[in-house]
């Protein structure tokens, strides 16, 4: 078995892995390795050919491949090693990585620090329990996106999309532009799950109907999808009898959520947050296992890649320092807690002496509110939406004013604030 020793090993060559590797290298870690199972770097961005990426990072609207290419080019200009078509099988708490590829066979990579950047996966039909047969034509939206944008063929002519997440909305436009007919987008929530600009530019632009508080209750067809039955749902998401409607189609796309991919993390003993489905991390993005860091969609599902890059640079920087032995943490550990109308906050704990950036999501939409950061900061927000991640910075000076060791994030109405 080939044995390799590195300072920082990054698992995953998508936007998170690329940014983390670059940051670790510029922090001074000499041997940095990216392990990627695909044939090329860039991750899911390569199939997100629409634009709207990089507004914060580059102050311009890039497409996914353009955003990826910029980071890939930066990596190419360094001596960062890249292993493509290499599958990581196991990560141990002692930071040994077992991987396999067809050139080397089995590999044992011993790393001083590991960055987990494996991203997330789409929720599948199995998670939804939709009755019906198993005809061809049911795809997750991301799979269909790959077929169209990377492999170059359209997997259907008449589609219904279940779920109004961003990928579903983007695919509604993509299918329409490619000449397919999108009959409907169906969403169980009373509001669209994706960003408003996507509802406007992907659905309204093409007169695609969006049915809220509705779901697909049956898939018709044996060999190929022949149609779906949709129905309105009550507050508990149960179909309301009498509201059923059959829509003829040959394709059903599912855009029903993303789940961080943490099989390797769990195996390594990394503690997982049951809300985010990602590792519990401190503000250096270190997980519960010393020397193992996490960033990007494996940590929590982001809506903007710009935030992934920012978070991953932090992870890479601290992973670099850990490998060099120059991490200096302070004894005080502040726990971060999700308060009123906050679903989760990342990082879960603060222990450094550097400014911290928190990422969080609300549970439900609310207007004219104040985001209260443990009483240390109050930020007015005209509106908060579950689909739009909030971020807020806290300086060490501000954190010093915190009484006790728990920082509570909460949303309060402006009237009460």
């Amino acid at each position, binding site marked *: 078995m080939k044995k390799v020793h590195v300072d920082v090993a990054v698992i995953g060559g998508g936007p998170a892995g690329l940014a983390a590797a670059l940051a670790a290298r510029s922090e001074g870690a000499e041997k940095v390795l990216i392990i990627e199972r695909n*044939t*090329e770097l*860039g991750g899911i961005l*390569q199939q997100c*050919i*629409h*634009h709207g990426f990089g507004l914060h990072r580059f102050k311009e*609207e*890039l*497409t996914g*491949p*353009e955003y*990826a*290419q910029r980071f*890939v080019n930066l990596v190419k200009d360094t001596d960062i090693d890249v292993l493509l078509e290499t599958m990581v099988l196991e990560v141990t708490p002692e930071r040994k990585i077992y991987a396999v590829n067809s050139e080397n066979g089995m590999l044992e990579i011993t790393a001083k620090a590991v960055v987990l950047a494996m991203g997330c996966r789409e929720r599948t039909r199995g998670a939804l329990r939709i009755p019906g047969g198993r005809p061809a034509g049911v795809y997750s939206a991301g799979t269909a996106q790959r077929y*169209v*944008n*990377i*492999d*170059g063929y359209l997997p259907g002519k008449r589609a219904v999309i279940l779920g109004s997440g961003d990928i579903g909305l983007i695919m509604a436009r993509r299918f329409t*532009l*490619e*000449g397919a007919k999108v009959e409907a987008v169906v969403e169980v929530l009373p509001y669209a799950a994706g*960003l*408003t*600009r996507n*509802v*406007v*530019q992907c659905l*309204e*632009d093409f007169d695609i109907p969006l049915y809220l508080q509705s779901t697909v209750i049956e898939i018709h067809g044996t060999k190929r999808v022949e149609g779906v039955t949709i129905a309105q749902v009550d507050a508990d998401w149960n179909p309301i009898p009498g509201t059923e409607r059959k829509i003829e189609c040959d394709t059903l796309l599912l855009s029903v959520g993303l789940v961080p991919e943490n099989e390797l993390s769990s195996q390594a003993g990394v503690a997982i947050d049951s809300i985010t489905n990602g590792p519990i991390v401190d503000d250096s993005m270190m997980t519960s296992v010393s020397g193992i860091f996490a960033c990007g969609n494996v940590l929590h599902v982001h809506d903007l890649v710009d935030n992934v890059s920012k978070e991953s640079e932090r992870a890479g920087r601290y992973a670099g320092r850990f490998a060099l032995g120059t991490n200096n943490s302070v004894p005080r550990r502040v726990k971060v807690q999700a308060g009123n109308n906050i679903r989760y906050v990342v990082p879960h704990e603060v222990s450094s002496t550097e400014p911290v950036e928190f990422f969080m999501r609300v549970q439900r939409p609310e207007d004219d509110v104040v985001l209260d950061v443990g009483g240390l900061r109050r930020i007015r927000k*005209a*509106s908060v*939406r579950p689909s*739009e991640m909030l971020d807020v910075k806290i300086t060490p000076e501000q954190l010093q004013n915190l009484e006790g060791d728990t920082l509570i994030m909460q949303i309060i109405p402006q009237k009460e604030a």
Partner: protein
Amino acid sequence: MLKHITCTVCPMSCDVVLKVGEDGKVLSLTGNRCARGKVYATKEHTAPERTLTSIVRVNGGVHPVLPVRTNKPIPKDKLKEGMLVAAKVNANAPITMGDVIVKDFLGLGVDLVATRDL
């Protein structure tokens, strides 16, 4: 006549209400919370534009298709025509991000450019 336009400049998604005269001119505009919203809604009413992103066939690349975009937004009603033209394009690898694939796309003075190396 009243016309609602959801501003997409930022995540606030203001519901901008335009009062439009019979000749299509904007008489007044409310609901926007900033100046950019006014510019966006006016433009969206008079001459809506979109950036077209799609793919073209490519020979000799690691993938059969290459992602492309217009380097500037084009009139919204030209999207379909743009797709039909892009469907007939055959590019040749190697390609570098930013390479012009179709110059003066649809005669609109914009270029269709590659969005990755291939």
